[in-house]
């Protein structure tokens, strides 16, 4: 029998991973539309990662009825769930290095969120699962840190412009 606090935690985890996956996918598709294939490919991989984590959460939710929390009723540390990429940080000419740095910040924010959730709970099941999820986010962050070492640091907007968004002279 799952406690209400555990079900609420699962609702938060589901929302966090779902939003993360959908945003990564949305960005990947729009990057591809705008010809930034390298960054598109990276965000597709991140969407897959978030999808894998979402599948794990969904397994835990099997047979349970999650509380019906509307998108705007969740209380996140920021306006959106911690692993959801902010629109302001994007640009169609962004470099792979910048894209990875952004994803790294997302993974760290998610780790922090799960860690804080565990810290603030008294429910043993919540504490265990939240810490497990935090460890998983930490391992994603570490993997990204390693990958970043091999990616050349390119300043933002260094990609060549095929069709500059400027007015005719």
């Amino acid at each position: 029998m799952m406690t209400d606090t555990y079900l609420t935690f699962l609702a938060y985890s589901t929302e966090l991973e779902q939003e993360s996956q959908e945003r990564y996918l949305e960005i990947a598709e729009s990057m591809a539309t705008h010809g930034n294939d390298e960054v598109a490919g990276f965000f597709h991989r991140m969407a897959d990662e978030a999808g894998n984590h979402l599948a794990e959460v969904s397994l835990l939710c099997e047979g349970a009825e999650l509380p019906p929390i509307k998108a705007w009723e969740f209380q996140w540390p920021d306006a959106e769930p911690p692993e959801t990429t902010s629109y302001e940080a994007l640009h169609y000419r962004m470099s792979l290095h910048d894209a990875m740095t952004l994803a790294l910040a997302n993974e760290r924010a998610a780790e922090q969120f799960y860690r804080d959730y565990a810290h603030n709970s008294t429910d043993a099941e919540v504490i265990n699962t939240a810490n497990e999820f935090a460890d998983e986010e930490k391992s994603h962050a570490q993997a990204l840190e390693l990958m970043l070492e091999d990616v050349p640091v390119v300043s933002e907007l260094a990609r060549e412009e095929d069709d500059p968004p400027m007015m005719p002279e």
Partner: protein
Amino acid sequence: MNESLAMKPRDYKSGIKPIWCPGCGHFSVLNAITKAAAACGLAKDDTVLVSGIGCSSRLPAYVDSYGFHGVHGRGLAVAQGLKVARPDLTVIALGGDGDGFSIGGNHFMHACRRNVNITYIAMDNEVYGMTKGQASPTSPEDWEGSKLTPHGPGVRPFKPAAMALASGAPWIARGYSGNPNQIARLLAEAMAFPGFSFLHVLSQCITFCPQQTDWKAIVSDFEEEPLSRADEAAALFLSEDGFKTGLLYREPRAIWPPEAAPAEDAKLVLRDLASVFQR
């Protein structure tokens, strides 16, 4: 309705992929619409999105509902006509600052005045995004980002909330694209409001106005109850910085038309119209 209650936001997306620039604020409005639709259990067949022309106005194609991508500045005219003919539908008009406040400015004022029971989302990026970055009615006076106005447009920007209030809009709110959940909540409230609801969204154009990424640090929440006195709202809208978000003003009044056309008659009219178009 029960079937639609189980729908997720993504179920309201059409298969068409947006061609907006990555990071465009209009993505946020699209996500807010699908979230509000899922939370409110909107029936796709009873929902219509109507737009004009602009990057923002592409939005109806990306939602799996009925849609009408109309003529520049005329989305509100079509949306009001549709609602009067089919009061049973949920009608949302939307478009950009150019669409709604330049070429469509007159329709905007009269829609506020007429008070047909629809929602209007103005996706304001202070620029004509689609035509490559010219100044719009809401561009700052000294914005030098366009080569057409290298020293800035030099005229004071239009104040959408003040304009809406002066024209009689009974429900006025402001959202910000960095917070799609807030836009979704406001939209759910807007759709439930009986009358013309005006949702002004600060929606960044990452390509022509990259400085708008600073908005995140500037926007603030309007933490009070929505104002209901027009004089108080006027004082706020004329003096504020334009970055307060939330439900700002709410004062219901009689909607138009006083008696909505019966749906059956409306269907007859639509059938006649359809036969005209088929000729």
